[in-house]
């Protein structure tokens, strides 16, 4: 299935209202005016905080590190904060990509197992995976803090990625299972008759067919890991290993409680930009994730 560039919004197609007979386009425009004004105002309210922050981050005001006028002073301040923004960006990217990789690997293999094989304990394992959703984040992070410490993964970005992968499993496993189940069995059975092992059937025949599922799972894993705050807050204490959200939040407790609002704005822009770009490019997968993940369960 090729990656189509249909927009998210086109996916949700509700029946068109039937055209009202006997009204001219001009008349309809006048009747619709309150609607247009109201919805446009709403859209502005939703977009205003984002636009304001983007503009303010390159504009100096009181409480920022940028002198009055246009410029990148706030970004320079952010870049020079403690270990430097590149270190935090690097940490965030490392955690996010490792989480994506682990999530894709585990949920592809697991989804394949759940969709294609009968084995004892299968249902118990699947339901336990879904049960992760039921358990509060804080409830697990405290013992995980102790366990990761015991196995030498305290203060480690790898440890954070492992924890984040676990929290992605319910959605990802569900998504990959239905992705594999939606492919006819004949496809991999034919490959195996031709001499493929289950492994090479998975690798060569099935993987290309579940690509949309993989993109959705990867997108959600990336957004969740990139944005996560609670896990690194508890598991990371070393300043050099903080992820970007943590570092930007810590800008507020700088020397003598002086808050650099400008650098915080710059940090928010750096944090938000990849998410918004990914969202706009992959809208279709974002929406599909909710539709299958949330509603067929």
């Amino acid at each position, binding site marked *: 299935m090729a990656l189509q560039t249909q927009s*998210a919004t086109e996916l949700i197609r509700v029946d068109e209202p039937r055209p009202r007979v006997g009204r001219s386009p001009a008349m309809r425009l006048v009747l619709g005016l309150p609607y247009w004004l109201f919805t446009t105002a709403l859209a502005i309210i939703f977009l205003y905080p984002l636009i304001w922050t983007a503009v303010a981050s390159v504009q100096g005001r009181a409480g920022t590190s940028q002198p009055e006028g246009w410029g990148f002073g706030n970004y320079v301040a952010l870049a020079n904060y403690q270990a430097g923004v590149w270190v935090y960006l690097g940490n965030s990217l490392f955690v996010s990509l490792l989480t994506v990789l682990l999530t894709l690997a585990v949920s592809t293999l697991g989804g394949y197992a759940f969709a294609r*094989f009968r084995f004892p304990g299968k249902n118990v394992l699947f339901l336990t995976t879904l049960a992760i959703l039921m358990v509060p984040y804080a409830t697990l992070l405290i013992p995980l803090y102790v366990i990761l410490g015991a196995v030498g993964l305290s203060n480690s970005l790898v440890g954070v990625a492992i924890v984040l992968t676990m929290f992605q499993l319910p959605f990802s496993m569900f998504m990959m299972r239905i992705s594999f189940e939606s492919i006819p069995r004949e496809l991999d059975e034919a490959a195996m008759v031709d001499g493929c092992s289950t492994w090479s059937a998975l690798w060569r025949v099935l993987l290309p067919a579940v690509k949309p599922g993989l993109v959705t799972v990867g997108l959600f894993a990336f957004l969740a890991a990139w944005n996560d705050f609670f896990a690194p807050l508890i598991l990371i204490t070393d300043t050099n290993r903080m992820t970007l959200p943590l570092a930007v939040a810590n800008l507020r407790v700088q020397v003598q409680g002086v808050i650099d609002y400008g650098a915080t704005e710059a940090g928010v822009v750096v*944090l938000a930009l990849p998410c918004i770009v990914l969202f706009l490019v992959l809208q279709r997968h974002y929406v599909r994730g909710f539709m299958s993940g949330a509603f067929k369960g």
Partner: protein
Amino acid sequence: MSVTTSAAPDRNRRSRRREALRGWSYAAPTALFVLFVFVVPLGLVLQMSGSDWPLLGGNQGWNFPENFADAASHRLFWDSIWFTLKYTVITTVLLLGLGLGLALLVQESTRWKSVLRTAFLVPSALGLASASLLFYVLYSPYAGPFADLMQAWGFTFLGTPDGALWSTVFLIVWRFAGFYMLLMLVGLQGIPDDVYEAARIDGASRWQTFRDITLPLLRPTFALTTVLCVTGSLLAFEQFYILTKGGPDNSTMTIVQLIYNVAFQGQNDLGVAGALSVIVLLALIVINVVQLRVLRRGEES
């Protein structure tokens, strides 16, 4: 024929065993993750809740039920529960109402309505921490867009208990309204066209159609969105951690923020934090079961 009948069950059993082995080998990574990062920690938190366990120093032995008594007598225990419940009711009512309202506004797929939908959805691409930091600046009396107004009129967004609550609610509505709109749109899409067709033929008004058809048929959607929203709000942490730190005067202390404080800020008591976690876990299970019962009951009748 007689030869194959004796060999077939044997071969069958062997192939079934081979299938089970293959299945387990593919499911092994999942099982490892679920066991070591989920089941074991869950067991450990139970053990913690019954043990004397300071943050530094490890397990000092059983002390059940001391931690639960300590947790329940914490001076912020009932306050934080009350605040969390209040916050949950407010956000759930607002988010479900607004989600449905927005969904109805942009339901048809015209070009302009697609643009509106995207505009409402963009904030939900942001992380909760990023969104909270964004509003932290917006609400600031020094750098935000209302800074001049705030200084001239002498008010702050986060300085009073009510201000802090409603400012946080506004942030959450901004961040999540589009997300709930999307879920409502999916629910609306699930209502078959011919039901509306029949209502139209019967001469039902717009309002009657909405009240007697749309709302009742959206019941499964409401069940799901309510559970999602209630669970999310009961476990609120990041938005309060970043915007208010539970203040002013502990007026916005949520239960998860309290757990975090007990475990890692000052008190450093993992045992009591574990007891609080177990209480929250049990409460959440009860609340979800009750919610699903209540919301599903009408569905069958």
